[in-house]
């Protein structure tokens, strides 16, 4: 088996943007390993036959079931650089605008290679023991909980209800396509989740955090399929449309709480933006210690365009207000909001230049952090099945400047990134910078 790079649209793409080494020289204090990780996430990877021959599914993590990606092929789910930096890939191979990095193996070690030059030694993520076990209901545990270097991830709801409403899904998101492609159960059962986490906790030192996220769960009128009734339905007729999502997470977190001797346990929930009353219940009734509701893009006009369902349901300003309320409840530093770094430059309505996008994003991030909510960024990977599939992501220079800017804002505000640090999610170059 080999993996092949996707066809690159423009063979001269390297001449159109600064290279890894050029960006490194421009930002001499940017850790080279984190810059490499950023570029690998931007460009993707392919594997040499020698690298794939070293993959041992009995030892390495090669299976995953998540909202965005499902695989049981013998390809590493992700890589770790020598400094402990995760290069989170979920098997992502390449986009169509730039050549991917090559993962090669010399018989002793694996390396990330570009144009024949080895740029960083990597290891394949190791598989926890519970991956090979099944729940009492017969489900493979790896389909219930996935592992990152120090986090156990649960995706209780594998489908987003915004996609049930025509045109209301977020345009960068491939959750709907992934769900349809893999024909999986839309929901995980709470007993399966608790049983799997209990098994995972038997492996000492394997996790510092439990993490829950899933697609939005909306309580909507029967047969609602068009976008127009959404706003009306949300403002009348029904009880709060997020009550079902709240109850889902309350149920899971309460059940998981029985596994711990302390009332609170290191944990993170990424959910739709709940109102104050709902957030208070989450905090008071469960062991949850941190909360995230992703704005995805820090601009109201672009939020309305890129995240139409979220916009109609809560709105950009309403979303921010709910985040600020969450920070009051969970405490400063324990609430953040994720952005898909670079999506603010999506065509045709995104910012015209990288400079304009960077300035606007950091200004908005400053306002958020002044209200107790810090911003965490991931690298926009243009996913097959998303509305934005085929778009071109920004330059490496842009991502370096964005990471430095977000990290500086947090440092100035003295905010910890513990809830989303380098070995929990591992998908955020900007929080990697907080390590030193």
């Amino acid at each position, binding site marked *: 088996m080999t993996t092949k790079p996707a066809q690159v649209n423009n063979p001269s793409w390297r001449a159109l943007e600064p290279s890894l080494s050029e960006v490194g020289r421009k930002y001499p204090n940017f*850790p080279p*390993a984190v810059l490499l990780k950023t570029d690998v996430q931007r460009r993707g990877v392919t594997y040499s036959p020698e690298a794939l021959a070293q993959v041992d599914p009995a030892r390495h993590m090669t299976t995953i079931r998540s909202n965005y990606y499902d695989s049981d092929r013998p390809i590493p789910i992700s890589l*770790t650089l*020598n*400094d402990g930096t995760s290069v989170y890939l979920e098997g992502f191979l390449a986009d169509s605008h730039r050549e991917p990095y090559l993962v090669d193996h010399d018989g002793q070690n694996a390396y990330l290679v570009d144009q024949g030059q080895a740029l960083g030694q990597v290891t394949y993520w*190791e598989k926890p023991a519970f991956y090979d076990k099944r729940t009492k209901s017969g489900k493979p545990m790896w389909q219930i909980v996935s592992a990152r270097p120090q986090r156990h991830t649960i995706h209780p709801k594998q489908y987003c209800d915004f996609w049930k409403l025509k045109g209301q899904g977020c345009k960068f998101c491939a959750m709907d396509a992934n769900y349809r492609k893999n024909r999986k159960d839309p929901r995980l059962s709470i007993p399966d989740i608790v049983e799997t986490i209990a098994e995972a906790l038997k*492996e000492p030192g394997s996790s510092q955090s439990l993490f829950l996220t899933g697609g939005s769960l909306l309580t909507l009128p029967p047969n609602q399929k068009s976008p127009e009734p959404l706003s009306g339905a949300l403002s009348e007729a029904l009880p709060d449309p997020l009550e079902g999502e709240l109850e889902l997470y309350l149920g899971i977190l309460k059940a998981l709480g029985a596994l711990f001797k302390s009332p609170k346990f290191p944990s993170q929930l990424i959910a739709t933006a709940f109102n104050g009353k709902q957030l208070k219940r989450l905090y008071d009734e469960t062991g949850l210690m941190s909360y995230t509701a992703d704005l995805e893009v820090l601009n109201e006009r672009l939020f309305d365009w890129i995240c139409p369902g979220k916009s109609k349901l809560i709105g950009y300003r309403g979303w921010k207000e709910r985040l600020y309320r969450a920070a009051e409840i969970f405490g400063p530093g324990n609430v953040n909001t994720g952005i898909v770094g670079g999506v603010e430059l999506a065509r045709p309505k995104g910012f015209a230049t990288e400079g304009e996008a960077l300035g606007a994003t950091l200004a908005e991030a400053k306002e958020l952090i002044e209200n107790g909510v810090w911003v965490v960024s991931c690298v926009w990977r243009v996913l097959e099945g998303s509305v934005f599939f085929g778009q071109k992501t920004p330059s490496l220079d842009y991502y370096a400047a964005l990471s430095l800017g977000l990290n500086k804002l947090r440092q100035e505000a003295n905010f910890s990134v513990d809830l989303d640090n380098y070995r929990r999610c591992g998908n955020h170059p900007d929080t990697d910078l907080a390590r030193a």
Partner: protein
Amino acid sequence: METTLNREIIELVNSPGTIKILGTVDADGAPRLAVKESLRVNGQGLLEYDELIETSETNRNVLRALWFGGTVRALLVTPGGNSHWILARPVKTLVSGELFRKRYEAIRASGRDLDLGAVWILEPISFFENGLEKRRLEEEAKHPLLRHLDRLAVV
């Protein structure tokens, strides 16, 4: 100076009676010293230690050394007061996986309620005996002019 640790220094590093201090520098160049009881030589002749405090200044400094090509220095002091140092380069940190787990289990089995932030692997660059008697003899051999006359006087 030698670049491969010899048997004597390996035994010294691995002896529980040796006091082991790791020296690093912060981003502003200020030195930082920390006792690292767990410093040891592994089967590949590399130094290893367990970082028990994930956000410690030492952990940050060692990481910065790895990122930007810097070095750290281990000072070893024997129960008899003799001392050696090892100059080393951080080459890898383990934050999960099999070796991390083994070290975590060993730390938990010690009975102390400790956690593990990382296992660091350092490549020795050089080492040197730094004991007073050895250094005094070297100093007098290399710099015979640098001594007080009264030490030589017969009056």
